[in-house]
């Protein structure tokens, strides 16, 4: 059987102010109908650019510099723009990352599907609406007649992704390219979306390219994988073979770095790295943080004003939860978006006032101090936080040195520029940030380096409890592996306790002693990490665990 898509020796260049950048170099692969090809790699590996080249939707500065792309007998490189426009959406279509941004915010989703149908003459003005609703039904959207009139902002992330898939599949294309289709979605939503895509692809015998940074996802849904690094393919093999017997050192590093099975935290690091054994956590001491019946309610933002005599509707973001973090302990707070885990961590951090309940820190009721005044509390330095997005949480106008010095100047015991500077350098050494990077601005640092700055800043004033809000969610897996190990080492060295907020159970398992599972503002389960994850008692925990894609070979 002949290959349906044949890419040979593809090179893509970008013209930039600093000369030509070779984003993709000599990439070759082939794909048959009904098969799924996974392109795996970390940020900057050229995997997305490869797919854009396939559809010829590169930015103005990018162009195909060499090689050959053949799609069903058509030479993509030589096709005219008009021919390409006919192919796009009808023969080749694409599902994008960040579904909400991928849809026109001020056009009804049904109309957006109609646009595609009308463009490719799959519908007429008369039956377009009916056909659009039919497409919505095919991507298993309940109430498609009603959803037709929805705008993207009225739909959840998972629902938006279904719309994007509906757009991509509306004209029954033969090749679908999915570019990180589930990044940023919850793990159960990810499973639903991926299963839906896999089903539709199978029904229609389409060829699929799945681009992802998540090896587990690639392993679960792809027949063949290619691993890309710095614009080149380093390895290409059937999925099973790739995991069983990775040939290239980089592939091995990636596979190791992906949290998997029973691997311990040190197992994530490259094998040639001689890391000292993971510190053994001391037995947890007395309770450090005690949370009791914590409640957070928000007034409802409903359009209808409540009738007189009727209490104003409130939304319970956190519905009376109790838990405890002991000294030296790591506790994971797990749940999907909207479960109240971030609200809980913000209340514990005293950034947000609670509606009811108490928060005791080392025996003192810190919940009694309003969040507004907590900055001057003596406990402020004892409770610090590492934020989710390492880029957004740094002031773009501050150098790394200034960012780390910031809490020291406010809360630290150091007096004078010299003492502060010495402490900053000590902290940089502690988190493994090379001294010469201290005078760089955030945009001059890599994601991992920025994460280190964020961690150094948080531990600058010797906190006893560190709240970590998905600290590695925005990082590549190999960087995540390093940062997770750094966190484990720092905790032992500085005798801190962690409250680790995450949606990723496999990461929580590596880092935490105990885990708390939240759903709809309530705790559904809590207990020893190993026990909860291997033998969950609540159906929701089970669903969360089962939704994690993992290579089963």
């Amino acid at each position, binding site marked *: 059987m002949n290959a349906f898509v044949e890419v040979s020796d593809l090179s893509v260049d970008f013209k930039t102010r600093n000369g030509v950048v070779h984003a993709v170099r000599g990439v070759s692969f082939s794909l048959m109908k009904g098969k799924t090809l996974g392109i795996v790699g970390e940020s900057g590996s050229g995997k997305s650019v490869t797919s854009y080249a396939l559809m010829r939707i590169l930015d103005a500065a990018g162009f195909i510099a060499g090689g050959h792309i053949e799609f069903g007998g058509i030479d993509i490189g030589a096709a005219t723009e008009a021919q390409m*426009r006919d192919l796009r959406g009808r023969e080749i*279509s694409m599902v994008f990352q*960040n579904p909400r*941004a*991928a849809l026109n*915010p*001020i056009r009804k989703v049904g109309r957006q599907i109609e646009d*595609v149908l009308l463009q490719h003459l799959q519908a007429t003005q008369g039956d377009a609406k009916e056909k659009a609703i039919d497409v919505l039904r095919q991507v298993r959207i309940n109430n498609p007649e009603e959803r037709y009139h929805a705008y993207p*902002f009225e739909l959840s992330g998972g629902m938006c992704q279904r719309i994007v898939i509906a757009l991509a599949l509306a004209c029954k294309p033969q090749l679908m390219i999915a570019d990180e289709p589930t990044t940023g979605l919850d793990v159960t939503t990810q499973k639903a979306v991926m299963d839906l895509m896999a089903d539709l692809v199978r029904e229609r015998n389409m060829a699929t390219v799945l681009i992802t940074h998540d090896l587990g996802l690639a392993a679960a849904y792809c027949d063949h994988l290619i691993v890309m690094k710095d614009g080149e393919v380093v390895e290409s093999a059937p999925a099973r073979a790739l995991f069983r017997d990775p040939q290239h050192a980089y592939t091995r590093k990636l596979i190791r770095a992906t949290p998997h099975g029973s691997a311990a935290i040190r197992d994530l690091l490259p094998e040639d790295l001689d890391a000292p054994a993971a510190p053994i956590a001391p037995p947890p001491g007395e309770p450090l943080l005690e949370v009791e019946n914590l409640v957070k309610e928000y007034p409802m933002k409903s*359009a209808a004003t409540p009738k007189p005599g009727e209490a104003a509707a409130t939304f319970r973001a956190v519905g009376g939860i109790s838990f405890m973090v002991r000294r030296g302990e790591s506790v994971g707070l797990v749940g999907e978006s909207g479960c109240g885990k971030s609200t809980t961590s913000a209340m514990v951090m005293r950034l947000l006032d609670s509606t009811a309940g108490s928060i005791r820190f080392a025996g003192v009721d810190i919940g009694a101090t309003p969040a507004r005044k907590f900055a001057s509390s003596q406990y402020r330095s004892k409770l610090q936080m590492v934020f989710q997005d390492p880029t957004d949480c740094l002031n773009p106008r501050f150098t790394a040195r200034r960012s780390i010095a910031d809490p020291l100047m406010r809360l630290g015991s150091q007096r004078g520029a010299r003492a502060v500077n010495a402490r900053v350098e000590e902290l940089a050494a502690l988190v493994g940030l090379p001294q010469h990077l201290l005078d760089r601005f955030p945009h001059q640092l890599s994601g991992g380096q920025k994460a280190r700055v964020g961690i150094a800043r948080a531990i600058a004033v010797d906190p006893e409890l560190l709240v970590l809000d998905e600290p590695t969610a925005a990082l590549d897996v190999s960087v995540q592996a390093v940062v997770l190990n750094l966190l484990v080492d720092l905790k032992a060295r500085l005798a801190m306790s962690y409250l680790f907020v995450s949606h990723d159970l496999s990461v929580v398992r590596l880092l935490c002693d105990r885990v708390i599972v939240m759903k709809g503002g309530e705790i559904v389960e809590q207990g020893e990490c190993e026990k909860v994850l291997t033998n969950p008692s609540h159906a929701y925990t089970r669903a969360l665990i089962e939704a994690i894609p993992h290579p089963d070979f």
Partner: protein
Amino acid sequence: MSQSKLRIAVKRLAQAIPTLFGVIVVTFILTRALPGDPAAYFAGPAADAKSIQQIRVALGLDKPLPVQFMLYMRDLATGNLGDSISTGQPVVSDIASRLPASLELTLTALVLALGIAIPLGVLAATRPGTWIDHLCRAFVTAGVSLPVFFTGLALVYVFYYQFGVAPAPLGRLDFAHFPPPAVTGFFVIDALADGDPETAWAAFTQILLPAITLALFTLAPLARMTRGAMLQVLSADFIRTARAAGLARQKVLFAYAFRNALLPVITTLGMVFSFMLGANVLVEKVFAWPGIGSYAVEALVVSDYAAVQGFVLAMAILFVAVNLLIDISYTLIDPRVGFDD
């Protein structure tokens, strides 16, 4: 328009009432705080202290300020803005005759500016770095850097004095034509409605040069905003989706990109309009245009309280109306408006 959007529109309208009241109070106090004595001006240079005092009593200026204010408010409630001491006419009729002149000029200029600025901005954004982008930049730079009285005088010099293709810059109509019966107060439209194309053409040629002068000035922020907004929208993810779906270029550009880019353009449009209406005094002066801007300046110079207050009030009402229109067009374009509110 849905029920909730209608409610927002009504709410915005209600929010304007305190604003208007504030404007009334502030202008009342400010006009009283201005140097100059209207009684002395009204009495003329030959008057003695006694006759000035008489006039002051006649104008009600001898009473304490709070009483004056109450009287002013009572008159306002009956739609009486007082009499202008410089023209001797009721302020209401002065404004009614002059506001349409300003509105006609401003709206014509705005239509002209929009007609040039939006296509220019869109073209510049879709072809960055090309000659049309440079042309856009040149227009914007010239528009903001050339003062209106200069462009006005230059246009008069070239088209009236040198080539003689434009009529004399002497107001809304030359002496050969009579103003058409007032319906809208816009001469061109009124003359056409009256079935008098000759007068309509005469009024049109009169308004052309001042409108171009004003349009050149207004064009700059509009073209700039259109270009910027289009560039930003064109780099958005959903434009890539639309391209990947194979949608035609026109569809992507207009149905997807342009509609999204319209929002900031409309905001700018509202600001520009409000600004133009009051600030085109210079253009009105150059072209002897009997508009409201020149009226207000003349009134201010002689401390003509009633006229100044009437002018400010009219402007405030227009301002509120324009803002309301913008809010409504926002809710029509952007479905998200009204939900975060």
